[in-house]
Every structure is written in C-alpha cells, then in structure tokens.
C-alpha cells in the first residue's frame, strides 16, 4: 500500500489489513520529502518503532543533486530507533536488491520467520551500523 503522507484516510480503516511494516521514503533530491516524512512520523503509533519502521533514502546515486544532508537522515533514524537504507531506484540491480531486502524485513515483521522478531532484527541491524 502506498501513501503520499500520513495519517491514512480514516474512511477505509475497517477495510485495511494489519500493517506490519512502514517504510518512509525520502528522496535525497527533495527537501520537501524529508519534511513530509518528519510530519508524517507524528501520526505513527509508538509501538511501530519497535522494529516495524524503516527509512528508505532514494536517489543516492546522484551525489550532485543532493538537497538533503545524509547526516540529517541518519540522525532521524537514530532518533526513531529505526534502520536507514540507502538505494538508487534508477538502477535496476539495486532496485531489485532493495525490494528483496524490504520483503525479507516484512517477512520478519509479520512473524513469518521463526525465532526472529522485528525487535531483535532491528537491534541486530543497529549493532552492525555502529561497527
């Protein structure tokens, strides 16, 4: 399910399936997308931040078109205890790999991977980030 911002319209609440993972997409070429994500974060229930939220920064292949400082996004990830993934959607290989990563994460968040919970997975990712 795709949305341009949160909160989601309340009319369809009763039709909506359970949400297992929220991926916030930030376009490194658009400051507006970062502001939009920051405003939308306020509408997410706190329980999601136990491993069911991740930030996806797109457009990182184009260093010369950066409108956002990567530090700012990393700080956002730290503040919300959620991983930050970087990708370039214009390159098919990276697009496919990123999609596979997200599907793997979604599987864990939905409880389909025995022995691994969303929270334990996210702390694993953060440990490797610090290294």
């Amino acid at each position, binding site marked *: 399910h795709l949305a341009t911002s949160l909160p989601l319209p309340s009319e369809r609440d009763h039709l909506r399936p359970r949400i297992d993972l929220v991926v916030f997409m930030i376009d490194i070429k658009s400051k507006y997308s970062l502001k939009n994500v920051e405003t939308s974060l306020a509408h997410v229930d706190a329980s999601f931040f136990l491993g069911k939220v991740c930030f996806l920064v797109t457009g990182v292949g184009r260093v010369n078109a950066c*409108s956002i400082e990567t530090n700012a996004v990393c700080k956002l990830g730290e503040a919300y205890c959620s991983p930050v993934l970087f990708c370039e959607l214009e390159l098919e290989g990276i697009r496919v790999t990123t999609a596979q990563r997200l599907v793997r994460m979604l599987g864990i968040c939905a409880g389909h991977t025995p022995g691994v919970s969303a929270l334990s997975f996210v702390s694993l990712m953060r440990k490797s980030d610090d290294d």
Partner: protein
Amino acid sequence: DPQKTAFLLRKAWTLYSVTPLYGFCRARLRDYARLLGAFIAAEKQKGLAVEVGGELDIKAALSSLADLRGSERDQAALLVQLSSRSRASSRSSEDKPVWSGWFCSVFGDDLSENVPEHFTCLPLFLTHGAETYTALVGSWFQKTFDCCFRRLAISPLNLSWMVAMWAGCKLDRAASAVELVFSVPRLSHPLDISYAIHPEDAKALWDSVQKTPGEITQEEVDVFMDCLYAHFHRHFKIHLSAAKLVKVSTAVASAHCDGIIKILHSQYLPGVLMLLTELAISQIQ
C-alpha cells in the same frame, strides 16, 4: 593585489577539480608554455581542434599568481593564457586573448598534507573560453603531469550554503537582488522558477538566523532556506523544497549547479575560492 586579480571578476568560470600534478616545476613555466603551444599547433594540424579562423596561431603563456593562495602552505596559483595572432601580423601587440584558465588552491591543506613528494596540489581549475581549448589544455596537462580533470558540479545542498553565506555579506554599495533559480522535475515541459529577494531583506533574515558571526552551521542554513521556502509557499502555494535549486545569484557571486561561477566582488574572492577549493578536494577524495 586587487589590480592583478581584477581579470578574475565578473567573468563566468567553468569549474573542474584536478588531482595533484606530478613532476611540476615552477622554474620551467616558459618551457611548458612552449610545449603547450606546440601541442595545440600539432592537434590543429591533425584537424582535431576545428576553430573558426584556422589561419590563426595560438600562443600559450603560463605565469604564477603568487598572491592567489590561502596560506603559505598553499601553492601559488598558476595562470594559463592562450592568445591568437593572425599570421599576417608578427607584432605581439596584436595578440588577442582567446582562452584563459587558472589552477589554484586556497586553504587546501586537507589535500596537500597527505600527498607524497614531487606532487603539486592545485585542486581547483577554472576556465573561460571555448570548450575545445579547455579540452586541449586539459589533455596536455594530463599527459605531462599525469593528473585527472573532472567537471565540478555543485549540489543544491552546497548552493544553499553559498546563498546563505553570500546573502549575509556586508556590502557598502547598493547590492543587487538575491536570486534563486529552481528547476521543477518530472514535467512534460521544463519549468524554471526564479525567486528574487531584496538584498537587505535577505541579509536581515540571515542576521537573525546566524548565532555566531564568522561561523555557519548546517542548521542555520536550513532555517534560512526554510524561511524562504515558507514565504514563497504562503504566496504561491508551491513547495520550492521539492524542486531542484540550480542557480544562486547574489551581489558577491553567482553559482550554477553545472559548476559555473561568477565572482563579482574582490573583497570576497578568497572566501569564495576557499569554498570552491573545499568542494574540489571532496570531489577528488
């Protein structure tokens, strides 16, 4: 000092980053000029440099600009000038400048302190004149000193630093407007938005944002830009933050994201060059 650097002002310079030059010797500038001239003549013979007025001879001249540097640790700037002389006349007063380029380093310690012997660090290269001559001079330097040139693009992030810094500069004369040009992506017809701000308003805004004079932080630049975006949105309901900032213009200097700069005020020349040197070094590393 201002006399010698006057030729740098009010010209559009195209920016490149250059890796350190190997085996460059300051004493041999005359030799280099001769070799460069011969190289250009040879390339013209091969028909590779097709310029209007093929009967013109191109003469090269290299000189040092000792004052154009940040600290004593920087190398003095190197100026390369190409001038044409019609074969009909042999008087040197008839030389017409056709292209100029200069290498410089202003507080480029980040690069020069880590470089082995025999390397000369002049990471910033600025050119003015036909692209064919830039290519010729570039390839001669590459062949002779084993260095590498790359166009220096300026990201919207860096352009916003520049406009914040320069809008806050104190100028005695009446200043020209602060202008930001945005390009709107993903439309069937490209759309450019030009946002002009009265220089006094821009300076007043920056002065209210900057906490420590002489120091600038990313947060302060963000607040400055957000104020400009919010003001524009209030009036036109357009989010400039979603568009791409492509050019900034102030009374101090103007810069384009393709790596083109124009410096208008000699007082701020070192400051602008220092910023550009930093950008060039981060592109090299």
